[in-house]
């Protein structure tokens, strides 16, 4: 255990935690906005898969990483339009619709990968960018301020999302249609439009999450996310629908994963205990959810389609 508490290993663990947390954070923040408007999207994983594939394909064909990021965002937006039409326009049940989006994304990304790529080919990864001055801070700078731009963006979006929800008219509208859509409607707020835009933002951020995942890895393969999108949805509950809480959950999840991996690498967790250790992040999340359960207040109209009376 002593080997773990060395500066170099702790820095590496922190860096790993942040890398792992980035896709979760982007997807969870987007899902937070959607859920605060009363729309649950269980299709986040499918959106991420499609975005990840198209981002990968873009960089494979053009070599342009920023085009790949843009492609991921646009694919997320397109999926948002689809999901918005289904859930807001057609008032379909959100849970089943989300599962449909997930299966669609899983299947289509798989199909396209096989047809367009086949054997996995490595692509460029997002380069790390040093933040001036901050990256020179001993150890801390290496862990926190020598990351790629999408990671910085993800963490900057935490206060931005908090401000959007708490300090803007649009944020107030989002919260009101998520809590009491009938009242919001009576005050002239367009519930449908507000929810639709929230869905677009949420799915775009899921698209960014897919792009971040694939561009951090530099490779794609079928079902790349391995259920990451579902954990992102769970992290919204974990974070009590607040951006800071969501960030805490994403970091905790990433940190536990990173620590487990470091302990395995150092032999602190014996090979025979690997299976148990693999469950640690999920167990921790469940325990935290249980602990938080009484303090959590979900948006009152979450999952409920709006019908004007």
């Amino acid at each position: 255990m002593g080997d773990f508490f060395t500066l170099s290993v702790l820095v590496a663990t922190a860096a790993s935690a942040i890398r792992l947390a980035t896709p979760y954070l982007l997807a969870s923040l987007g899902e937070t906005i959607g859920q605060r408007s009363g729309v649950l999207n269980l299709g986040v994983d499918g959106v991420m898969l499609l975005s990840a594939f198209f981002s990968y394909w873009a960089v494979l064909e053009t070599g342009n990483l920023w085009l790949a990021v843009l492609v991921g965002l646009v694919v997320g937006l397109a999926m948002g339009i689809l999901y918005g039409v289904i859930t807001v326009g057609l008032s379909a049940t959100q849970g089943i619709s989300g599962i449909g989006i997930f299966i669609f994304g899983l299947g289509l990304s798989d199909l396209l990968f096989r047809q367009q790529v086949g054997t996995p080919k490595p692509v460029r990864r997002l380069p790390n960018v040093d933040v001036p001055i901050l990256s020179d801070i001993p150890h801390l700078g290496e862990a926190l301020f020598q990351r790629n731009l999408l990671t910085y963006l993800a963490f900057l979006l935490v206060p931005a999302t908090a401000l959007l929800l708490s300090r803007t008219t649009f944020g107030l509208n989002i919260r009101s249609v998520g809590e009491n859509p009938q009242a919001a409607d009576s005050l002239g707020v367009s519930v449908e439009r507000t929810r639709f835009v929230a869905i677009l933002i949420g799915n775009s951020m899921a698209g960014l999450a897919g792009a971040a995942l694939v561009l951090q890895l530099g490779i794609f393969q079928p079902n790349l996310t391995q259920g990451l999108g579902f954990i992102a949805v769970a992290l919204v509950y974990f974070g009590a629908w607040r951006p800071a809480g969501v960030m805490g959950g994403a970091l905790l999840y990433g940190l536990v994963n990173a620590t487990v991996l470091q302990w395995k690498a150092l032999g602190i967790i014996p090979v025979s205990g690997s299976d148990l250790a693999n469950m640690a992040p999920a167990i921790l999340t469940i325990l935290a959810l249980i602990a938080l359960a009484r303090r959590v207040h979900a948006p009152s109209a979450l999952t409920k389609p709006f019908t004007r009376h």
Partner: protein
Amino acid sequence: MKRQRRLSPSILVMLGALAFAGVACGGGDAEEPAAPATTAAPTAVAAGPLRVAIVAPSASDDLAFSQSMVDSVNALERDVELSITDGTFIVEDAAAAIRGYAEDGNDVVIAHGTQFGASLMEIAPDFPDVTFVWGTASDTQGLDNVFAYAPAADEGGYVNGSIAASLTDSGVIGVVGPIEAGDAVAYINGFEAGALAGGASEVNITYTGSFGDVALAAEAAEAHLANDVDVLTGTAQMVVGAVGVATDAGVPWFGTQANQTSLAPDLVVASQVYHWEVVLEEMLALRDGGVLGGQAFEINLANGGLVIEFNDGFELPAGVRDAAEAMIEAITNGTVDTSNATPAVAAGPLRVAIVAPSASDDLAFSQSMVDSVNALERDVELSITDGTFIVEDAAAAIRGYAEDGNDVVIAHGTQFGASLMEIAPDFPDVTFVWGTASDTQGLDNVFAYAPAADEGGYVNGSIAASLTDSGVIGVVGPIEAGDAVAYINGFEAGALAGGASEVNITYTGSFGDVALAAEAAEAHLANDVDVLTGTAQMVVGAVGVATDAGVPWFGTQANQTSLAPDLVVASQVYHWEVVLEEMLALRDGGVLGGQAFEINLANGGLVIEFNDGFELPAGVRDAAEAMIEAITNGTVSTGS
């Protein structure tokens, strides 16, 4: 003296769960790895009565399979304290019971059901001092504390069939079977052969598809009676329903597994009774000598494990019993062969289907099989379903391909074994090829295959040792199972033998999580690792990390050079076609399965493919070639 007690399955499930939790928690504190069973000193025999537990799929008094074992243990000539959990038709319940009994300090735990094999493979290694007895099975799955047992049920079936032929007036005999698997199929085939050899004109066989559905068995018997059948037999615990029908119709009945005379005292002619105590005594004698397992046993007419018990309440025509006794003698002497004819082989191009868990071009496990089938030197029509990471999807694909008339269906994943056990018996003319697996689960139309992945791992490890400056090498694995663990253990052994000071191994717990594999590689790099390897399809993430860090990479399963043309040193490539050709040759000869194969360096199934784009230090490649030669010759042992 026999003391007998029973635990309800639900209590045992809870005990098993608690036991599992205890073991799991304890695992984290373990400083030293447990000594392998192969090196353990013979275990001392416990004083006092021998504590034996039976886990059986049906009622312990079913007058069939489960009762045969209970009666046999009660017949042992030693002091036994017997515990029984019966009715465990759900495999998970049985697994919990097996683990619970082992935890509870029983000396011998009998897993009485072929279907418990997969669970036993997981449980037995955790209890090296316990003897597990498993059947019906023809091998011990390579475990040193497991004895296997199986009946030559076709022998008694043949005798029963020959007697039945002498009793039928219509010439038509009916058989009610459960699922076409295990000793049921052996008994029924033997019965059919004996009846036809004895002069019956027709033997109608109905597999109901269930071991437990008594109503279905009764209806199957009714259907036989409606089609001129005037003698009946059947096997498995559900036949009590068929015996009732036979009784009502006044039709003679032949039993098997246990003596079924009590079901119909006037109509049961004879029963083939399993006396497992014959082989149990041998197993226990071995245990007394410190040998806790590792051997397979068979009961048959010759060793007294199978006995034809006649019902004196049924009056046989003159001479029939004497003829039956003579038949038993002839089978015992080997004069009469009770084995069955082999199915004909289909003509035309060979239709082969592969069901694989990941993408067929994953540069890893799945691709290795697709490439191998494409390399076969015969006319093959190939179908592929890949990406079946959900076992139920794979099972549907396997069944679909079999129904679709494919000649060979390759279930390319250890995890598909349980499904295959259910599916393969339904398609006796189809050859199923399953791996990685070291045995065929007792199925006659299943070939198994496995790689000696430790061999190539050892070679890769020895080369890696010559490339490391820090002396620390990192390994990224998926789940600690199958060929992954063999490769990694072989790699570790080779690297340490080659001079590396440390080999750090990380099992990520996932075959598919690329991000986790990448982070595992990052973790290694943060801990002085300067050479990496890994196995399974998710390692593409780790190769990306190695590429960015400029760290050499060793591949396995398929040639991974294209992932990092400058950094992949060598790949151990699986050439399954070597053993596939052997399997297909056997199939051509009418043998549809029943054998296990291994690819290794010696038979050319494993090949170390060097990347010419990576410049090795002088002499390293020659040393590697010499190492391959030494492993092939057996001079170097790579076993971990």
